[in-house]
């Protein structure tokens, strides 16, 4: 009789996801779900959903959830957490949501040191609306609103969010990971779990950026999109732990 050693995390419903084939949103969602289940905190979690592809997650999570307006997830999460300090409150936001329309909300929540966890999925595009230029779109990268490639003279440069957030005093954990390879996925999982653990420990604001792909809107196969990430995205957005005040406090 075979032993089942791998299964879908219980805090995800037993459904197939609606994310495009090869899209790393699915993997990022699974890593967060695994972390929640490994920490054994599913019933204490309140998941604040953003606007974008990841709004679809409302169909897949078996968690308490609040769907917010575009970019406002950190403000909504603030209201939730202040009223339920015993809850573990996280938001999973895309780059249009977090780095463009919601830039103020995320930076100010970070600056207040809200005891929430923000996961930032950066795929350099507006996925749900069909591949428009995001604040994180790379120089020269094509999108439906910069068809000849992003031109910094008129559209500026891709925003490095971790580097902005790390300049604030309050955040306790700021890190960027890429989900391009098994080794990096393992590192990301560790960071994700730590960002949730920080809330259990009552430490403060945690920010984890996850570099992912968008094969559909990049016009690439999943394999090509991973190669593009490695050759371009990961060079512009360095993967590292920028702030870790949890280590300091352990010393």
């Amino acid at each position, binding site marked *: 009789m075979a032993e089942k050693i791998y299964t879908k995390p219980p805090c995800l419903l037993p459904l197939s996801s609606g994310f495009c084939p090869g899209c790393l949103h699915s993997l990022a969602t699974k890593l967060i779900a695994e972390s929640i289940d490994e920490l054994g905190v599913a019933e204490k979690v309140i998941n604040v959903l953003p606007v974008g592809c990841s709004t679809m997650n409302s169909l897949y999570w078996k*968690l308490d959830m609040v769907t917010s307006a575009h970019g406002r997830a950190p403000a909504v999460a603030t209201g939730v957490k202040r009223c339920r300090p015993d809850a573990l409150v996280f938001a999973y936001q895309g780059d249009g949501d977090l780095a463009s329309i919601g830039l103020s909300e995320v930076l100010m929540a970070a600056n207040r040191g809200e005891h929430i966890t923000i996961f930032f999925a950066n795929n350099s595009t507006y996925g749900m609306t069909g591949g428009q230029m995001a604040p994180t779109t790379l120089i020269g990268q094509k999108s439906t609103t910069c068809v000849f490639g992003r031109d910094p003279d008129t559209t500026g440069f891709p925003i490095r969010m971790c580097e902005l957030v790390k300049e604030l005093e309050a955040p306790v954990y700021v890190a960027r990971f890429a989900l391009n390879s098994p080794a990096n996925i393992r590192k990301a999982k560790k960071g994700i779990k730590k960002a949730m653990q920080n809330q259990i420990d009552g430490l403060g604001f945690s920010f984890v950026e996850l570099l992912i792909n968008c094969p559909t809107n990049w016009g690439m196969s999943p394999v090509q999109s991973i190669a593009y990430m490695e050759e371009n995205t990961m060079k512009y957005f360095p993967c590292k732990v920028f702030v870790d005040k949890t280590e300091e406090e352990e010393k």
Partner: protein
Amino acid sequence: MAKLFMKGNEAVGEAAVRGGIRFFAGYPITPQSELPEYLSWRLPEVCGTFIQAESEVAAINMVYGAAATGARAMTGSSSPGISLKSEGISYLSAAELPAVIINVQRGGPGLGSIQPAQQDYLQATKAPGHGGFRMMVFAPNSIQEAVDLVYEAPEYADRDRSPVLVLMDGCLGTMMDEVELPPFKELPETICKPWTVGYDGTTRSGHLITPIYPEAGLEGKNKLAVARTKRWEENDVQVEEFMLDDAEWVIVAYGIASRVAKQAILNLRNKGVKVGMIRPITLFPFPKKSIAELDYSQVKGLIDIEMSIPALMREDIELQVLGRAPVYEYGRSGGVLLDDDSTEAAIWKIIEEASSNG
């Protein structure tokens, strides 16, 4: 009970605390800033939460998050700030979340003026945000009535799982008057309700608060909202009718304008003019019957008096009058206040001109 002498904005803050509000997020804006100022120290005294948000938008979304947990939540602002909050108000309505919103109106449009005005009637009653939703709108005309309405507002919000608006103006917010404060409401031990998010001690997971639905589901929600609006119109209209029995001229005024109009009416009555007033206390639901069921064999005309040019309630009045009497308007605007003498003179002028034309 002892009366206190309080500023309107602060009295409203205390009424909210006594009515069970335990979460407030707001942003400084004249003429309502005393409300967040007061609550910044008052809410922590009752184990509540005050947050000075980074923006009006963030404030209403913090209220959205707080309301999702079942906390009694409120925000306040003044006209331009309410425009910024309109996104969040629409989302509150869509997600069926209770919340209390205070608008201490100032002159408009745009940045307008910081002085008192009543120029947000249409926004409040017709389109407080995108998507064709309505909410109950209360319009006090005194600090005492503001206290009483804000005290009860969370009950309506909870009952209907809907945002509720209390439409004040810069006069009521910043003037001082004597006020009797109601007793503290007893609050349930837990903020959890069957629909809220947050672990309630039993095994459960998967409650969803959402402002987005599949198409058929959304149409169903829209229909339910219509049914709720009908219930409001049947059960929740509040109106003051003043000296209407023999009135040949009927003033329609709400909020601070009704206070001024009342004095003008008393002055005109002393001169033998048969004038009365209909004062909507709920602007939505609008007191349609009071206007529709006037005796039009007796009424010679209605005069809409507002601290707004144009008078914004006029179309709602005309929809009930249906041409059975002429409707006139008088107002000051942009932060210029109404006063007794000019208002009396304006009413007299309208009556005189109508009589000479008639």
